[in-house]
């Protein structure tokens, strides 16, 4: 096959990003990208809020990549960087529009009631998505966007999974992992802060008062200060969903009873 592969458009958080392919082996890169982003592909006619170019740079150039250009010398790292770049673009596109958390979210398929678990990077969000996203609808394992009516705009991105003996993470499609689809209209039923405890212990639950919850959630938001009356928006979500709890746990499976309770039982 010759020529440069055609652009694709992906959608998350209610906005679209156009993705172009440059450099060698563009068809191979495009195929791998489309497989990983299977849940987010939308027709190219969708107006993109931003653009990203992926370049497989087998002979690395001394020059810095251009803005919104993602380069790597092999496919795996290129796809990992692409995920980060697209997530950043979607967050920028939603600044001042959505309340955004660093969070994983899953949803009760029948009702759309959704559980938002807020946590910093590297503290178990993807593991939670893999554990509970087969039973409940997968909404995101990294960034959860909430509009003014407490609806969640899904971002069914690939899961970035650490593979042993590999320096980069692998980007796995939610379809490949077997995660359930997002329901049509997911909405926030509960917001929880999670902290993974390295030592084995049963999960503990602590209710946080409003200002303490806001203080602990704010570092895990994106562009909160760009949102009109951002603290009030956050407070409204917290108060409308019965307050924030802090769940401490060791293994994601330990949280099963708490998750079932928060989402009104198993589907």
């Amino acid at each position: 096959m010759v020529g440069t592969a055609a652009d694709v458009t992906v959608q998350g958080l209610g906005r679209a990003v156009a993705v172009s392919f440059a450099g060698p082996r563009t068809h191979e890169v495009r195929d791998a990208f489309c497989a990983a982003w299977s849940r987010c592909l939308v027709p190219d006619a969708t107006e993109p809020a931003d653009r990203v170019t992926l370049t497989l740079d087998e002979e690395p150039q001394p020059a810095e990549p251009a803005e919104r250009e993602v380069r790597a010398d092999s496919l795996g790292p290129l796809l990992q960087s692409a995920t980060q770049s697209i997530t950043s673009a979607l967050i920028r596109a939603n600044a001042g529009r959505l309340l955004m958390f660093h969070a994983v979210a899953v949803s009760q398929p029948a009702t759309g009631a959704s559980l938002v678990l807020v946590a910093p990077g590297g503290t178990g969000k993807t593991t939670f998505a893999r554990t509970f996203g087969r039973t409940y609808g997968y909404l995101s394992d990294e960034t959860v966007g909430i509009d003014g009516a407490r609806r969640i705009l899904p971002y069914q991105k690939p899961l970035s999974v650490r593979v042993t003996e590999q320096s980069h993470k692998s980007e796995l499609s939610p379809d490949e992992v077997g995660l359930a689809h997002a329901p049509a209209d997911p909405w926030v039923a509960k917001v929880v802060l999670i902290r993974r405890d390295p030592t084995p212990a049963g999960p503990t639950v602590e209710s946080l008062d409003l200002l303490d919850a806001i203080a602990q959630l704010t570092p895990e938001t994106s562009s909160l200060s760009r949102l009109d009356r951002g603290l009030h928006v956050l407070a409204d979500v917290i108060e409308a969903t019965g307050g924030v709890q802090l769940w401490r746990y060791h293994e994601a499976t330990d949280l099963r009873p708490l998750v079932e309770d928060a989402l009104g039982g198993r589907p």
Partner: protein
Amino acid sequence: MKVRRVEASDVLSRDGQTLALFDTQLVWLSELGALAYERADAPITVADLADALRAEFGEPPTGSLADAVSSLVDDLVARGVLSQVDDAAS
């Protein structure tokens, strides 16, 4: 010396405590700090701020009001809630 508040993107109060959001920084304010922030919407001398705080909360239980307000202002300036204003510019 005059001070003026740094405009927060949002301020939320509940039960005598206040949170103010500055860009990515969230700051807790006591009732005294919240009133100082409210009154410093235009340049204000520390003496006038002290009068405003006395009118609302009375004299401090220990020590002088001037010392307490000076300490409060220093703390709020250090935390980026108030900024010092050049008298000539105000």
